[in-house]
């Protein structure tokens, strides 16, 4: 057995173990834990969309929650107001969100670094304002309620949490696979080239604007998928889902978990959502605690949990990875965006 295949065996075993646990969750744990896992998955997709942009494009977006909300609102409206049957609201929600990303993306590819953050924040706030003010359609701050999860292959995912869990798990795995493939594809390599030196990539003849644009739209698609399941699961959508705090929470989850890996996004979301549940019983100062955590993580722990774990235990799973370009975890500290 060569050394490389030994590492591969360890990785396969670990993946199989994690996969087995994920599939077994509805049988080995309580319904409460299943519901928490569902929450972590849809918020995890929002976080993944954010960390994908931050890690691969080097740009922090403060409007991913907008795409989460646009698809959520689309599903809610198409289902409860116009009564379309199951696959249509889901697909239309994704398409509308992607179209919105396509529109906003036209502006966003024009700016970089700190301007990217500023513009995405402004556009995200405008979408929030639309959700909050356009009350004849969005029902204002109350939001749209009584949205039911669909019946899939004859099983109601509204009644059975296990069915919903697997229904969402398929899409969640699809989204994770999609982003992983994107990271490892030639497109992902080109994108990292743009992140590290845009002028060099432009000089080499790559269409950097198009690459950045595509990355933005892909990320929006994943966030939109999270929004669809959020709406199905909670049965309601209101402006809070599109708000800046929702986006900051996803950002905190991403940085906490480790911005350079998809696993980090899920780990960070899981920690934050658990904390949310624990704290909501004790205090109403969730925002304050989140703000302080955000500050501490930004200042002292930018590698994130998965980044730090990979530093210590990564050698157990991967051979020393000098200069390997494959989509991996803590290759370099995140966020090297510099203004001057």
């Amino acid at each position, binding site marked *: 057995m060569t050394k490389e295949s030994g590492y591969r065996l360890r990785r396969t075993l670990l993946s199989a173990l994690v996969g087995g646990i994920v599939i077994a969750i509805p049988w080995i744990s309580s319904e409460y834990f299943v519901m928490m896992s569902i929450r972590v998955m849809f918020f995890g997709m929002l976080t993944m969309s954010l960390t994908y942009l931050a890690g691969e494009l080097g740009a922090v977006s403060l409007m991913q929650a907008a795409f989460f909300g646009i698809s959520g609102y689309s599903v809610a409206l198409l289902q409860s107001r116009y009564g379309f049957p199951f696959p249509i609201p889901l697909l239309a929600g994704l398409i509308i969100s992607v179209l919105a990303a396509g529109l906003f993306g036209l502006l966003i590819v024009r700016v970089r670094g700190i301007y990217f953050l500023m*513009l995405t924040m*402004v556009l995200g706030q405008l979408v929030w304002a639309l959700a909050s003010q356009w*009350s004849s359609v969005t029902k204002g701050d109350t939001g749209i309620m009584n949205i039911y999860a669909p019946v899939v292959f004859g099983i109601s995912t509204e009644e059975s949490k296990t069915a919903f869990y697997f229904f969402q798990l398929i899409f969640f795995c699809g989204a994770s696979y999609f982003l992983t493939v994107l990271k490892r594809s030639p497109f992902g390599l080109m994108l990292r080239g743009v992140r590290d030196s845009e002028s060099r990539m432009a000089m080499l003849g790559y269409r950097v604007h198009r690459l950045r644009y595509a990355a933005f739209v892909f990320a929006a698609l994943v966030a939109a998928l999270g929004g669809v399941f959020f709406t199905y699961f909670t049965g309601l959508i209101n402006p809070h889902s599109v708000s800046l705090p929702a986006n*900051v929470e996803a950002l905190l989850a991403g940085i906490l978990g480790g911005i350079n890996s998809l696993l980090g996004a899920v780990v960070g979301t899981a920690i934050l959502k658990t904390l949310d549940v624990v704290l909501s019983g004790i205090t109403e100062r969730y925002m304050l605690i989140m703000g302080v955590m955000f500050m501490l993580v930004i200042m002292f722990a930018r590698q994130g949990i998965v980044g730090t774990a990979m530093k210590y235990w990564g050698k157990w799973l991967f051979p020393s990875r000098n200069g390997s370009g494959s989509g991996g975890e803590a290759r370099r500290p995140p966020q090297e*965006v510099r203004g001057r």
Partner: protein
Amino acid sequence: MSILVIMSLLNGLTLGALLFITASGLTLSFSLMRVVNLTHGAFYMAGGFIGLSVLKFSGSWLLAVLAGGVMMSALAFIEERFLLRWARGNDLIETLISLSVAIIVGDLVLVVWGGYPRTISIPEALNGTVSIPLIHTIYPVYRIFMLGLALVIIGALWVFLKKTRLGVTIRAGVDNFEMVSALGINVRRLFSFVFTLSGFLAGVSGVVGGTFLMLVVGEDWRILTLTLIVIIIGGMGSLGGTILGSLITGLIYSFSTAFIPEFSLFVLFLPVAIILSIRPRGLFGKER
């Protein structure tokens, strides 16, 4: 012209005046330090609430304005000195730190003053209405005072930036930061000063704005959004651009509030989109 149009026009002008006072501080610190201070909206709101409390205890509106400004400049100084300086050079991290401070300040305001909308009462001397000649409309004195105050601040900033040594240094720093530090000027102190000044302007605008707009938790993000739109439209670091951007934003917001209230904020997407498509650096922004 219908009365609604005239009123929207006047309200747009006064909102523009308020936005200018708020945005001038932000654009100054942004252009010098390359940090979008996302705490600016929180400074506005916290300054307004401090003014509210000071007015309640002292009864003096002028004192309230000063207290809001001074307290926020102190907060800005602390933020710059102990938090932002920690990450100096990495503008993204600095900006995210300012975002975390904004969240903390926003929640603390909720703890101290509660979630109900409040308004600072208009001082005796500025209360009442005047009849504006030519168009025969009555209009609150306070809002006309707002316009005057914005003009005074424009004048003061102009004199400060063009005529004083410190102002010239700041403008030089905006244009060529490396050269200024190479000339032996204490850039750290310059940053602290500009950031503190920016906090002062935000606090003052909070009290001034809280006297004719509502003060409520959530207002921080609305004002910050409007202020960032002003800067995106006008271009950073330019006094002229900030004036023009404030007027455009104020007028559009005021007209859309009157005529299409369901889209009053979202309509601002249009000027942002149009100007970014034509001039990515804003109307008066310089290519660098």
